């Protein structure tokens, strides 16, 4: 037991270290990737506000854009180490405040989609396994095929045209239910696909035959024997699902014109607002890393086989 726990904690320590290194990598990569973009925020402001070259030069010096990249990087690193992510170059407001204003909207969308995704993605395969001759089987297959064949981007735009413009059922801008549903079904399909394949595979295992011979009910076999075993594999993909939700939410926000992290990031990239883009990409990246880390740790505790690796 002690040896096992030590194995787990060693594995976790290595994983934490690795995640930290990747997070640092993201910070470095984001910074220099954005500095490679030709033109800076002063060019953009200058175009809009018709500033003279002198005014532009002054503005650049004030923002610290005249320093070398390396100098800027160290300054900025010191700042974020102290929790200060700087001011947005476009709006002169702390970026954390800008992000905070739209974060709730993105989280609402992401969580709604995730809830739909988990309920349908786990519920349908389970029901399909309990009632193998019912419409649930068909439904589970349908959402699987739907999610691998139709990209959310095109469904989203089609939904805007059909439901918002033609039928006028939903507002074309800022609507929550349509993007959440579209993204949710997509997520549900990707979960259902993996879960169903695993459940079918476990169904033919010896211990299920034993359970059946003991006289357990079908519901009990599925819920207590098949599902927990199938879930260990699905658990490994939690990080992937999380990043899919994030990317999907960004796409949906852009398609549906919903204020959120996605629209903010797009605006920031186009306006060369380095501090804002950096912070958004870093936060999102670190969120995904943490999700992956949590999934990995959970898996180590749940599935003893993983410790052997």
């Amino acid at each position, binding site marked *: 037991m002690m040896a096992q726990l030590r194995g787990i904690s060693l594995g976790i320590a290595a994983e934490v270290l690795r995640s930290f290194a990747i997070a640092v990598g993201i910070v470095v990569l984001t910074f220099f990737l954005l500095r490679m973009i030709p033109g800076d925020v002063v060019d953009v402001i200058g175009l809009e506000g018709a500033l003279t070259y002198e005014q532009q030069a002054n503005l650049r010096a004030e923002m610290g854009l005249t320093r070398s990249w390396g100098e800027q990087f160290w300054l900025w690193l010191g700042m974020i180490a102290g929790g200060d992510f700087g001011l947005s170059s476009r709006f002169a407001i702390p970026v954390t405040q800008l992000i905070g204003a739209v974060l709730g909207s993105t989280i609402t969308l992401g969580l709604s989609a995730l809830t739909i995704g988990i309920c349908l993605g786990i519920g349908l395969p389970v029901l399909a396994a309990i009632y193998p001759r019912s419409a649930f089987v068909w439904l589970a297959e349908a959402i699987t095929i739907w999610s691998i*064949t139709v990209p959310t981007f*095109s469904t989203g735009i089609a939904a805007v045209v059909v439901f918002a*413009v033609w039928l006028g059922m939903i507002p074309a801008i800022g609507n929550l239910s349509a993007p959440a549903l579209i993204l949710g079904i997509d997520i549900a399909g990707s979960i259902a696909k993996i879960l169903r394949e695993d459940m079918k595979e476990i169904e033919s295992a010896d211990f299920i035959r034993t359970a059946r011979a003991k006289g357990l009910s079908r519901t009990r076999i599925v819920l207590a024997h098949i599902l927990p075993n199938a879930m260990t594999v699905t658990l490994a993909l939690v990080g992937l699902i999380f990043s899919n939700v994030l990317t999907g939410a960004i796409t949906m926000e852009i398609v549906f014109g919903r204020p959120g992290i996605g629209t903010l990031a797009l605006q920031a990239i186009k306006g060369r607002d380095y501090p804002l883009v950096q912070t958004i990409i870093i936060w999102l990246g670190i969120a995904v890393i943490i999700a992956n880390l949590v999934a990995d740790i959970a898996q180590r505790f749940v599935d003893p086989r993983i410790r052997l690796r």
Partner: protein
Amino acid sequence: MRALYPPGSDPDGRAFVLDESEDRPVAGPTRRFRFPHLRLGTWLGVVIMGAALAIACVGPWISIHDPNDFSSTVNAAPSDIHWLGTDDLGQDVFARLIVGTRLSLVLGTVAALVALLAGTLAALFGMASGRIGNLLVFGIVDLIRALPGVLFALALVVAIEPGTTSVVLALGLAFAPDFARITRASYLQEAARPYVAAAFVFGASPVRIALVHILPNITGALVTQFAIILPRCIVLEAVLSFLGLGVSPEYATWGRMIASASSYTEEAPHVLLAPIVALSVLTFAFAMIGDELRRRFDPARRRIMT
């Protein structure tokens, strides 16, 4: 039940199995060509793919209109002159759709090839070069995978200067980690096999083992992943164009069409729906073919491809 299916196929059509009662066919002139027994979805996928390829090849000669020609009627409804109507600049939607098929397919294929080459070679190098190379390569892989794909590609396109090359590079880099992951999983499976040990005993270098011995044995997994990634490249290209950062405007890609039509959803929804339907049909075809390939090359569902 069994008799309904031709011998040599299993009822689910999952894998090609030889009928045990029949002797293994010896090469000879008597063996007739038989259509492979495929599922309905796969047939649909193959037929759509074939049609798309044909359109991409003979494209410009199908439509009587020039895709970049302007007519006086703007946002016109479908008619017998303009089969799918005209867009906001009075250009023929059908002609643009057909030209877009070629561009989207070529762009997607090239981008997926870039991803395949970059991802696979990096992963093979990482696997062959021991602990440090492995850590480095897969650290970068995890790094890119942690970033949201849309934003990463977006930032990359802007950083390299928007244009065809940067779009292809950005898509390729964004999807390279997927190939790297598959390569690693397949590599680990193959590395446990006796032929790798044999090669090692014969004194083959790690690089030689990776490139000459293992690579040919994991092509199945790579081809399957290619079929999965290609449509994603096409969709992401469409998203980038939609955001105004795709290839330059004179190329009529589907994403460009979606982008310019999305400002006129009320006046001319058909202009917007045409490229979307085309995009969805093509993704459907690829998904079906990809699924079939996965069944063939990964029949035991070792789940290294998702």
